[in-house]
């Protein structure tokens, strides 16, 4: 866990999302599904963002401007600097035989890096609109569906090793269908490193700190 000040090299629009490219320096990108706390300019708390892509020179984060913190991040431009802390949490277990990536909406964020590390396995990506679906270009080998079609309708027969990230209803549906799935959850977080107990989520009647015990948890 390191906190460093980093310069933004680019901020690219991808549909409604912004892809922030941050100088990597000596930062370890971690395992796909792990996250960094990004300083949100002018805000009290940083925001947790999973690594979207990692190149030798840059770490990239895909951000949906849905609130004041994410909007402040999306307003950054090349040359701006921000503090980043990470990598944090537990990522996906990459020792899988038949990986299938499943993502909904901004849940696509960790998928490009995950796909890269797994050698481009098949992916199913669901979005609200064609505009949101522009982000699908970040993931190779992907089948895309737009609402009212849901990703769960496209799951193949057999027993793929599902690695998923997306809205809670999607994750809840996948839990029922694929008990072996690895699911990346989300919760408001203050610190990201286990200090605040703010990101506790109730899963099967038990409260878990997502930042330490997750964000990737086994479905069952």
């Amino acid at each position: 866990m390191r906190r460093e000040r980093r310069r933004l090299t680019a901020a690219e629009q991808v549909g409604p999302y912004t892809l922030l490219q941050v100088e990597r320096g000596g930062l370890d990108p971690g395992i796909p599904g792990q996250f960094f706390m990004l300083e949100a300019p002018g805000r009290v708390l940083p925001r947790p963002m999973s690594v979207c892509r990692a190149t030798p020179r840059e770490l990239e984060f895909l951000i949906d401007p849905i609130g004041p913190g994410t909007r402040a991040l999306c307003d950054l431009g090349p040359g701006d600097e921000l503090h980043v802390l990470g990598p944090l949490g537990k990522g996906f277990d990459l020792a899988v035989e038949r990986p299938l990536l499943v993502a909904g909406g901004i849940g696509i964020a960790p998928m490009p890096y995950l796909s890269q590390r797994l050698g481009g396995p098949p992916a199913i990506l669901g979005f609200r609109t064609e505009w949101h679906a522009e982000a699908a270009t970040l993931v190779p080998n992907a089948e895309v569906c737009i609402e009212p079609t849901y990703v769960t309708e496209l799951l193949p027969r057999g027993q793929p090793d599902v690695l998923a990230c997306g809205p809670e209803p999607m994750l809840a549906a996948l839990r029922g269908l694929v008990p072996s799935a690895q699911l990346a959850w989300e919760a408001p977080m203050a610190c990201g490193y286990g200090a605040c107990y703010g990101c506790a989520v109730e899963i099967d009647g038990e409260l878990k700190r997502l930042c330490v015990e997750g964000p990737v948890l086994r479905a069952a």
Partner: protein
Amino acid sequence: MLLNASGCLDALTAPELVRLLDGFVTKTITPEPREGNPPVRIAETDAGMLNSIGLANPGRNCFLAETLPRLRELGVPLWVSVGGFSASDYAETCAALERVEAIELNLSCPNVDVAPESAAAIVSACRAATSLPLYAKLSPSTWDIAETARALEAAGADGLSLVNTLRGLALDERTLLPRLGRGTGGYSGPALKPVALAAVYACAAAVGIPIVGMGGVQSGLDALELIAAGASAVALGTILFSDPTAPTRIRSELAAEAAARDLGHPLDARGAAHSSLQIGVSHSGNGLRKRLETGPKVTA
């Protein structure tokens, strides 16, 4: 002296950060285990944040048997924050504690139901149960905090921790429903600093026992201001969430702020705010020294 505010750091998850502090204050311990409040537990606002953790903790017995021995291994002075729902809850936990630096009585969590007894009655019960230093942590929304401070000093408190969070509410901009699972939460962060300063200032003028000041500290200057208001130690809360390295930075900023005022030690500024003389940053420091000499008595 720099501490963490109770509930703002988990020593066992981040031991390297605890070693940056002069003491570690535990999360509040209650007699029985508590899972805490339902999610959502965190909501950022424009000038602070709300939390509704709800005193999640493993309970007294588990804390004493499992957590405390592991905390001792860190080699940092330990302050144990004690909570409860009656005076006897507090007193029984105090009686069970030994070999810790101090006990902080959390008399002011905004996220749970409070004990029916007065703060002074709880302090009296704990005083009878332990000879360890007892610090009473108060809410800034206490009606007359200086009067409460006097009552707690008379009841046997050795110090005050000022301040806990303020109760606040944030609504979702789309649904207009509370953003926190429990509705309201404890408000902390930069917006709390003037409130904390006012509480420390009022209590320092009212009592002679030492005060740990906390509330919205983000910089060494913030810490120096709390000292000037009368604190003899400063605790960090919300800033630890956004910057885990804050203790090191704030300690060096505090030293620089003191040096810029020709003070040998930051605590030489203690009580400076209680003088009516006007000075700013002085290269000679004479103004501040004079001010400290002529200000009202604020004893350690």
